[in-house]
């Protein structure tokens, strides 16, 4: 079977290759424009005046003054951003710590009823937050957590533990157990093994989990809308809609607020792309 480089490509084959290549590239570029243009338009409109937005939607801003951005910042965006940071950081920490503990327990200890517990925890993956919504509101109201950051932190943590445990558990299952067995023989306690051996070994998946959690918590809207109503506790996604309801006619300022809210997560994506991709593939592929 030595076909090798065989017959040289004919002229018509070359022609079709060129055609299909230019088709692929024009499609990719078109889609790229469709994806980017609205986002750039959003950021640029934040620099415009309202009259310019109405009269020349396609035009480039006349001046690059940060007036709208500063206006939006003082009009509530600063407070929304702080709330988002508090809720995202705290729930990311809690979710990933608890999930790592759980994954360790599920993969490295001899606990009774392990399949049942695993099923219970991972079963949470299938349950939609919408279905729990109405009873949760009453629960949060009766314990006095309604309209606090804690409501969101608790809910984000509980609803993300199944997925995060699933990610970390899959990673731990693939780690060879020689190291922790050896440490166990040397008399290390379970706690020591977890903190000094497993956690450092799991660093890549921990980073991925943190990033995926940030992506979720920064953008979450349903819980944030239902469980908070005071401006001081609202996170960015809800804050934006209330800003829109209050200053709906000041388009430029709303555009500026939207840009401020989108920017951190886009930057994070580009900085941590590798970990993003790892988390996403582990999350769906297993």
């Amino acid at each position, binding site marked *: 079977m030595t076909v090798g480089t065989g017959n040289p490509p004919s002229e018509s084959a070359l022609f079709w290759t060129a055609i299909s290549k230019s088709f692929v590239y024009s499609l990719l570029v078109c889609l790229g424009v469709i994806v980017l243009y*609205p986002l750039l338009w959003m950021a640029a409109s934040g620099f415009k005046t309202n009259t310019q937005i109405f009269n020349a939607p396609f035009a480039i801003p006349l001046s690059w003054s940060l007036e709208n951005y500063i206006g939006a910042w003082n009009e509530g965006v600063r407070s929304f951003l702080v709330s988002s940071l508090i809720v995202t950081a705290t729930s990311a920490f809690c979710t990933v710590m608890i999930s790592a503990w759980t994954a360790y327990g599920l993969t490295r200890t001899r*606990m009774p009823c392990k399949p049942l517990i695993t099923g219970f925890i991972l079963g949470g993956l299938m349950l*939609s937050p*919408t*279905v729990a919504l*109405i009873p949760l509101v009453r629960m949060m109201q009766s314990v006095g957590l309604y309209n606090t950051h804690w409501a969101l932190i608790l809910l984000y943590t509980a609803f993300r533990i199944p997925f995060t445990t699933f990610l970390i558990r899959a990673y731990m299952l693939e780690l060879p157990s020689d190291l922790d067995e050896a440490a166990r023989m040397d008399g290390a306690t379970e706690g020591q093994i977890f903190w000094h051996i497993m956690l450092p070994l799991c660093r890549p998946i921990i980073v991925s989990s943190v990033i995926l959690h940030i992506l979720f918590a920064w953008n979450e*809207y349903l819980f944030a809308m239902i469980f908070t109503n005071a401006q001081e506790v609202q996170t960015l*996604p809800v804050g934006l809609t209330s800003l829109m309801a209050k200053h709906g006619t000041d388009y430029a300022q709303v555009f500026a607020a939207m840009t401020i809210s989108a920017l951190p*997560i886009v930057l994070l994506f580009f900085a941590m792309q590798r970990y993003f991709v790892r988390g996403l593939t582990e999350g769906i592929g297993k």
Partner: protein
Amino acid sequence: MVTAAEHPTRGAATDRAASGWLRRSGLRRRIAGLISLRWILLAVLLIGVLIYVPIVDNFRVSTTNRDIFTGEITNVGLANYERLLQDPVVWSALLNNTLYALLSIIFQVFGAFLLAAMIEGLKSKRARNFWRAMYFIPSAISTTVTGLLFYFIYQPDVGLLDAGLRAIGLGDWARPWLALEETAIFGIIAMSQWQGFGYSTLLFSIAIQKIPRELYDAAIMDGAGPIRRLWSITFPMSREMTGLMVIVTITGAFQVFNEIMVMTAGGPNNSSQVLGTWLYQQAFIQNEFGYGAAIAAVIFVVTMLTGAAQVWYTAKRRVKL
């Protein structure tokens, strides 16, 4: 060993010393096992109290009604479910969810698959990374932001869409997209495709990267063109990812909420309601918690079915590998 510890009489036949040792080590093991439950305690507690309990409680709530004026809660049995069957908005909401699922499968599963195949066919690695990353950007942004952005884009006065249509001479097509009953839901679904296609493209890219190169080399030697290779190698070899994406997409389509809330809140005239927004409308605007819980039960059934399909699908795949 555990049996011996549980039934000391059975162990009596064996050496007494060994039996004592067994009993003690069995007990010790058992205690160690119970202590190791500390690792999962917090997770089980949080998930139990904040996910399982409310979901079970939702079914209880769905059999009650609260009088709006007196606040009195009465048990109404299955009345809320009967009302559900007769509510035309529930049916149109279900239809909208289904429409969402179908169009998302076309664009975000099959469209994204083709796009991923094109990207992975590019020679330069940098180009491949570049396009994948660029298309992913909208998926990283909150649906509130993208929803509001498209709310503006569809506006007849400042919006890009109508201005663009007029600019290329299609001014007749310009219309207030989100304010018309016929177009509102399609406008929202289009936004959702714009936001989500990069995410599924990324996942398909990864699936395609895992296909062994030799298959392509062999096909090229046999004279198979790019379309033929796509159809005979890439498509069958990434069928598992396609199946999984179809299921995930359907689940997502029946839980959709944010973009509708932000862009139309279900309007005009309930034409763009989906189950999630209708639940919100009934429970939190009309204060009909019982009826809202019944709508939630419908979402529960659908997501359980797709969830079971996903478990079944991945389990089947694991056996095969």
